[in-house]
């Protein structure tokens, strides 16, 4: 069942750059899409031009608010009612979509132009069968009658990698996982043989292993159907994986354009440069240097774009001329950039040079190693099962095996990264340690005290030493409380301030600790951006001066640049306050970057524990190996030579986990013994533990290849 594709496919670079003589399939010219709001006109897309050639793969990259999604929606005229295309042309096969009437646009949508959206969980109608939805899309455009449409739908689902499509097609959307639904959406998109597919963040909501499958599929579809693909993403790695050409958007404009390879190797706009440098990379080792290169500040206000270069306020390479608005002009072969500096022929510095001055404190790290590590948290065979509501009073009680026997030790002063796909139990584990949930069995010692079954009263004094940072900066702050109250309440509650004056002092101290000004105290959470809210959330955790912080995906809902800022803040705080982190994330590059040791979780069990360097250099467990190879890297040259071990299929249900080794159903090495005996977590190399009968063995595909 499980198999490995050891492909060395060159992602999206096979097709040559479009010849100048070729007619573009889609030609967007000076597109301006505005929103009319109470506060004024939001110029979300403000003069965007680009071309898509037949069969090409074009990536559009940018952060939230850059106008990339609005551009895509403008192309198929699916804008919300308060937005309008103010000017510009969208020429698709010699016809201007802007000037078309509604009927003509509708005939185009889903026929010649298809679109796939970000959230596969809401893109399908939950009360209709998959077959109905697929058939309808084909029948409505008059290409097929019902029986032939149904045959084609089954055929398409099969090609999208859905097993037993005859059976699957009769199902309802809720019976499909997110990745499967995205395959159905792609099947629907390709059902009428479109010449252009718009994919708006199609993999953002998916796990990294599923993302790798969908990206593979996109590449295959591009080759098989010769449809042009416009892939919109915030992730340069995803773009590099699929696209041959990239358009970078910032502040409603295109700021850079070029072939993926050239653009990633040598960015010609400081914003692209910053994007590339802000994201930690899986293939780079920066021992000792943990801080990421970030650009300060926040994106400009779309109600009132700056007069000059829109990036100037955050740009580290700003010159005087940047007060004037630059044009998108050619810089080198088939490349364009909207930057005065690079237009004058200057190159942007290579990665990480700007931070060379801040040398890491190696001495300190060595001194820390000299003293024997003292455990701050020890988990032994921790178990938490959640009962599922019974369908009838007589049916068997089913349980979700969320956390199923986890052993873990966290030493004082280190950062332990916890990774795994969604549903692997990492958030539950975090909540068990924070004692939001009570475990079913097992033991948990924090600073030498057993806390697995401690009462709230026993926990209360320990709360001061252990705090948590949450994932969603919009849900983790009480919307009815001012920042001042949010930060003061824990201090007062634990009696950490002598009087009101001391309390106010402490609030200001906390705000400056996380890089906010004192004026933030008198504001409500909704007045802040996502990144700022996450800073407030961190300040609240620090309010009681804890030693140990559980960070549950603290950066996963933030833009790349803001992510880098928060990571740097966390690293700063760790050094200044001598904190210990348990850092949970699904982004392996981030975990690798920030963690000293990493724990890999799969279906409630630990698969591998190792130091960050060892885990990525020589993973012992086949699951770890697959996880690592599924992460796209924003470097075409690296991607081309990378050995890939893609996982097939989806993780099994935690209601009924496989016997023996839980990973065996997707494992390329699985033998009979894996189904019979549960492998123990054994120390195979010093400090590197793995739960696998064939730990460290290379997979068969590789053996055959050599």
């Amino acid at each position, binding site marked *: 069942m499980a198999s490995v594709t050891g492909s060395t496919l060159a992602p999206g670079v096979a097709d040559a750059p479009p010849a100048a003589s070729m007619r573009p399939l889609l030609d967007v010219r000076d597109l301006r899409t505005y929103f009319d709001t109470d506060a004024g*006109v939001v110029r979300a897309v403000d003069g965007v031009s680009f071309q898509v050639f037949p069969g090409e793969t074009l990536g559009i990259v940018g952060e939230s608010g850059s106008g990339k999604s609005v551009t895509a929606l403008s192309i198929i005229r699916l804008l919300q009612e*308060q937005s309008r295309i103010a000017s510009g042309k969208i020429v698709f096969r010699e016809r201007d979509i802007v000037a078309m009437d509604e009927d003509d646009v509708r005939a185009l949508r889903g026929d010649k132009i298809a679109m796939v*959206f970000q959230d596969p969980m809401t893109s399908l109608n939950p009360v209709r069968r998959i077959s109905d939805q697929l058939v309808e899309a084909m029948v409505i455009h008059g290409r097929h009658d019902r029986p032939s449409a149904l045959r084609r739908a089954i055929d398409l689902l099969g090609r999208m990698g859905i097993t037993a499509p005859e059976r699957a097609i009769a199902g309802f959307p809720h019976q499909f996982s997110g990745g499967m639904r995205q395959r159905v959406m792609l099947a629907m998109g390709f059902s009428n043989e479109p010449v252009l597919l718009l994919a708006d963040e199609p993999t953002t909501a998916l796990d990294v292993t599923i993302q790798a499958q969908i990206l593979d599929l996109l590449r295959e579809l591009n080759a098989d159907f010769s449809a042009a693909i416009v892939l919109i993403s915030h992730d340069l790695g995803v773009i590099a994986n699929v696209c041959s050409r990239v358009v970078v958007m910032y502040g409603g404009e295109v700021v850079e354009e070029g072939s993926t390879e050239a653009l990633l190797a040598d960015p010609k706009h400081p914003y692209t440069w910053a994007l590339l440098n802000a994201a930690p990379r899986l293939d780079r080792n920066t021992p000792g240097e943990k801080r990421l290169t970030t650009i300060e500040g926040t994106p400009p206000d779309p109600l009132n774009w700056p007069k000059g270069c829109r990036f100037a306020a955050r740009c580290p390479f700003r010159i005087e001329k940047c007060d004037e608005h630059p044009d998108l002009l050619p810089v080198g072969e088939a490349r364009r950039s909207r930057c005065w500096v690079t237009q004058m022929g200057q190159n942007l510095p290579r990665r990480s040079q700007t931070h060379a001055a801040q040398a890491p404190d190696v001495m300190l790290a060595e001194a820390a190693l000299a003293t024997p590590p003292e455990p701050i948290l020890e988990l032994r065979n921790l178990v938490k099962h959640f009962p599922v509501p019974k369908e009838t009073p007589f049916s068997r009680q089913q349980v979700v095996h969320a956390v199923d026997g986890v052993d873990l030790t966290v030493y004082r002063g280190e950062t332990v990264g916890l990774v795994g796909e969604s549903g692997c139990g990492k958030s539950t584990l975090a909540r068990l340690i924070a004692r939001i949930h009570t475990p079913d069995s097992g033991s948990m010692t924090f600073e030498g005290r057993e806390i697995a079954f401690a009462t709230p009263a026993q926990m209360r004094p320990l*709360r001061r030493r252990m705090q*948590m940072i*949450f994932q969603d900066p919009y849900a983790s702050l009480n919307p009815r409380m001012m920042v001042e109250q949010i930060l003061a309440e824990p201090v007062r509650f634990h009696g950490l301030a002598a009087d009101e004056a001391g309390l106010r002092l402490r609030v200001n101290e906390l705000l400056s600790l996380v890089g906010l000004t004192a004026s933030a105290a008198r504001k409500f959470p909704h007045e802040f951006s996502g990144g700022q809210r996450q800073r407030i959330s961190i300040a609240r955790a620090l309010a009681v001066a804890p030693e140990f912080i559980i960070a549950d995906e603290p950066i996963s809902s933030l833009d790349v640049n803001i992510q880098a800022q928060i990571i740097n803040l966390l690293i700063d705080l760790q050094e200044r306050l001598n904190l210990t982190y348990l850092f949970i994330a699904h982004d392996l590059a981030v975990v690798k970057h920030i963690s000293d040791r990493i724990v890999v979780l799969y279906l409630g069990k630990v698969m591998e524990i190792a130091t960050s360097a060892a885990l990525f250099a020589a993973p012992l467990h086949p699951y770890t190996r697959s996880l690592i190879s599924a992460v796209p890297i924003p470097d075409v040259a690296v991607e081309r030579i990378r050995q890939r071990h893609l996982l097939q299929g989806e993780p099994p249900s935690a209601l009924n986990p496989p016997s023996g080794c839980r990973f065996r159903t997707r494992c390329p090495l699985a033998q009979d013994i894996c189904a019979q005996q549960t492998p123990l977590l054994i120390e195979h190399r010093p400090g590197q533990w793995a739960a696998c009968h064939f730990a460290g063995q290379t997979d068969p595909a590789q053996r055959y290849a050599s």
Partner: protein
Amino acid sequence: MTDSVAVSDDVQVAAIELRAESTSTRGQRWRRRYGLAAIGVAIIVAWMLVALLAPWIAPYRPDLVDVTQRLLPPSAAHWLGTDTLGRDVLSRLLYGARVSLFVSILVVLLGAAFGILVGGIAAYAGGWVEHALMRFTDLVLCFPPIILAMAIAAALGIGTVNTMIAMLVVWWPKFARLARGLVLVQRHQEYVEAAHVIGYGPGRVLLKHILPNALGPLIVLCTLDVGHAILVFAGLSFLGLGVVPPTAEWGAMVSEGRELVEQWWCATFAGLAIFTVVMGFNFLGDGVRDWLDPRARRR
């Protein structure tokens, strides 16, 4: 498919919330949104003033019986006529506002407070506590409210306080149901988990963190419900259960005048009074609902 358009961009979200026509001015939009609510507030304030000032503005005492003056049509001396005992309808109407408004507002406030407490505790505690409290709520909800209130009021005896108790018994369950739903939503928000991690006890989390965020729809229900309470109390009075006879009360006045088809003024004006107050509170409730919903607020 169009509904599911991924609006990841902050700009777009902001724009959707700000959905409005650029052509209309601020004042026009305010009037369109809160115009009716303002009228509602005006009506309610007017009736409250009337209730407060009744002794000074009423031309007669409400219980002044003058059999010689019975069933007179509206005239200069008696603007709204007189009833079967020769009492001035206008004066009784003005005094009746005191009872009707006081009783209805108090019943709603007390009922809401108790219901929110029950629903909040049930949702927050979960487990068997939730089951016990909510099944009890369902039990009360099973009975038709007017009939149950009638039975209780009849058992307790006629009188304003007894009728209020009867109404309270049937009043809280809907607040309990709504509060439970709202608290359940908030309970799993991360800010509540954060409060647990800091170590706050259940009472503090429920009262300081969860309830303020769940209160919006409950306030709306309260305002919409005052009108309903006036109707139920009037209904009970109409059936002879509400107030002790000489006391002026709108429902009782409608009840007394119901058979006097020729002397329409006996029942009609009291009915109109109930109608205006119910309308007033409904307008106010709609306005509060729009105001509390940030998306609707900016539309």
